[in-house]
């Protein structure tokens, strides 16, 4: 197990190194740089002024020098300065992380707490009206883009209650805090909940057909015990995998949700930074996300062993 852990950690480092190279060079391949955009915003192009600014920002140096400057800084915790705001990149990134983390955490919670029970109910009541209704709900969750659902929620809340659940950094009441995070989390988590529901349902259906379930029923175990103790415990592994993958994919959904609900989190900030070609922000932020995703995958793999005692990692 220890050797396996060491090997996995080594692979994680190799993966992260590969990601850093890809991020760095992909960003440079994208046409236009921060200087082009700054001059576009100023509405004129002066080659001498451009050259001065490129020199000032260090983007005229050879790429390999720029890469080394960045990655060595990242490893030391020195994230450099944002080209746009001219503030330390870390100072720009850090306050936004908890906002997105809360939103993502709530969305995943929403996904698991809605998706798993409804998936189980749908499987247990297979072929009933309830099953069909839940399948329609899950299908709609997979079909509705989160930005559209978000706009729908906003429009409905303004039209019906003349209220706007827009981000409030200092909520005065519990209700305001709830509106700040819960509504956008539901908008972005609806898709994950729908996916979780479908995976839970199909996984449960497979397990419910197993011999040991029949045996448990024959031995007089209650429906609840059979469904939740015997079946769900064995059906949960694919669900955990999906939730783990969804955690990584969530960032895509959060970008649009943060834009629609005007939440100043890292996801929207990342898109803005890409738009400005603000390399120090984009590179460091994507690397941080990569570290989180790679670590999340690692943790999910470890969780397999916790949930299924038959799984043992060896060399």
């Amino acid at each position: 197990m220890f050797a396996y852990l060491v090997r996995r950690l080594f692979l994680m480092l190799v993966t992260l190194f590969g990601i850093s190279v890809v991020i760095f060079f992909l960003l440079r391949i994208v046409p236009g740089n921060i200087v082009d955009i700054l001059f576009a915003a100023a509405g004129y192009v002066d080659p001498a002024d451009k050259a001065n600014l490129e020199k000032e920002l260090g983007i005229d140096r050879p790429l390999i020098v720029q890469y080394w400057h960045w990655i060595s800084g990242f490893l030391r915790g020195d994230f450099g300065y944002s080209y746009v705001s001219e503030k330390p990149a870390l100072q720009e990134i850090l306050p936004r992380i908890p906002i997105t983390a809360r939103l993502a955490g709530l969305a995943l919670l929403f996904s698991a707490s809605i998706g798993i029970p409804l998936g189980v109910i749908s499987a247990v009541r297979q072929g009933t009206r309830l099953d069909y209704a839940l399948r329609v709900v899950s299908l709609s969750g997979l079909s509705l883009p989160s930005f559209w659902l978000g706009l729908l929620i906003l429009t409905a809340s303004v039209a019906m209650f003349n209220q706007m659940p827009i981000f409030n950094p200092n909520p005065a009441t519990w209700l305001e805090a709830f509106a700040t995070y819960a509504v956008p989390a539901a908008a972005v988590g609806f898709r994950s909940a729908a996916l979780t529901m479908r995976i839970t349902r199909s996984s449960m259906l497979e397990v419910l057909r197993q011999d040991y379930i029949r045996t448990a029923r024959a031995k007089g175990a209650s429906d609840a015990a059979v469904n939740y103790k015997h079946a769900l415990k064995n059906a949960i592994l694919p669900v955990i995998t999906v939730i783990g993958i969804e955690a990584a994919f969530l960032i895509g959904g959060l970008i649009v949700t943060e834009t629609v609900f005007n939440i100043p989190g890292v996801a929207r900030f990342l898109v803005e930074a890409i738009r400005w070609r603000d390399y120090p922000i984009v590179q460091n932020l994507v690397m941080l996300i990569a570290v989180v995703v790679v670590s999340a995958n690692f943790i999910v793999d470890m969780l397999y062993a916790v949930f299924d005692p038959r799984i043992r990692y060896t060399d």
Partner: protein
Amino acid sequence: MRSVWAFAAMAALSVLTVSTTTLAGEPKQGGILRMYHRDSPGNASIHEGATYSLNVPFMPVFNNLVIYKQDEAQNRMDNIVPELAESWAWVNDNKTLAFKLRQGVKWHDGKPFTAADVKCTFDMLMGKAPQKFRQNPRKSWYDQVNDISTNGDFEVSFNLKRPQPSLLALLASGYTPVYPCHVSPGDMRTHPIGTGPFKFVEFKANESIKLTRNPDYWRKGRPYLDGIEFTIIPNRSTAILAFVAGKFDMAFPTEVSIPLLKDVKSQAPNAVCVVEPNNVATNIIVNSSAPPFDNIDIRRAMALSLDRKAFISIMFEGQGDVGGTMEPAPAGLWAMPKEMLESIPGYGPDINANREEAKKLMQKAGYGPDKHLAVKVSTRNIPVYRDPAVILIDQLKSIYIDGELDVVETANWFPKIARKDYMLGLNLTGNAVDDPDQSFYENYSCGSERNYTNYCNKEIEKLFDVQSQETDIAKRKKLVWDIDKKLQEDVARPIIFHARTGSCWQPYVKGVTVMSNSSYNGYRYEDVWMDK
């Protein structure tokens, strides 16, 4: 007797009415004006920017030497009033503009304002100071200024190479604040220090901009507001919904499009909305240095094919204006008369006749029903650019030109234009000041950095200088009309239309004036107050 009582009652009633009106109309102190902002500006330095995303939130931090009256919608030479200057005079055969400065004014950090600040601001703008701006888009405004001289702490003079009456108009623009000498250009980008009615508090990129009342403002009793808070919401649907739901006191100025205006008025019937022209012209930039548009016949044919009214009716439900380079009347001061405008090829009311003439020119150039000319119409990936580009492509079809839309990301737009890597471009040009010197020199002068097409006509260049020195307004107008007509006939940068846009605020917000011939000059906000 009855009539006496009736008279007394009427008098009492009228006194009551007057006093009530006075009470309701008396400006009140206090309150934070909440406004959404359409975009996160790159920085806070007005001198380094060219978008009113920057002027709107940061203009209240500063003062100019002079400014257009903030409670009149039309910017005119005769409504320029003093700010940091107490008075001014043209001397030395109109080659020197001398200012007497206001005394006792302090920067927001407590340091005194003096003539040295004026000199170093304009020295930086002219590129003559040791400290440099990272970007200096309006350097050409001061081409005729030889130097700035000071006499003591409160007198400053602009010494010109030749008379330029428009200099005063340029100095009155929201783009011309006075910066402090003791703060570096870098610090002004992140934490601007001004002398204006509001002090900078914070700017969180993509999040918010906050200003607070300057209690030591030199204009006593101003500003009325305790502060202004801008919440940055790039998603227009979300922003408008938030305004409708009362989360904001004001929508971002000129950001409510004509189609959206209906939604706002239906969902928030009490909202006050005005529609004004904003001196932004949608135009075509032509790469006349390469085939096929190096052929003047093809350029003229293209200009003849335009149905400008169709653009306006499709995009703005008819609320837009047809004109030349200068903004159309009545908002614009320099627009040529209608008859003169209609005498320019392509501006005549008979579109079919224009297009028949265009077809003949195309046939002369070797194109016809069996041989269409394929062109790429490049434009930025923003709806206000993309939508007219699509209509343009449709109209070009009528004269044997098959257009293909080439959508360019903003980051690549100016580099692409500078490389001349385009055939036709659909462009928007906002004029900071409704003055020919700003428009002609900036957009059409040989070598100007904003003359994207590198149009260069030495004859017209001479006329630019003639009109610029003319002090008789009537004479100058005639010269300007002739130049504008020639620019259109040369197809230098064909103007398609001048847009109008909506600005909305809640009914309790008072003292807002939306400028009708500029999008850049009306955001001091020191006279705005809230009746609640």
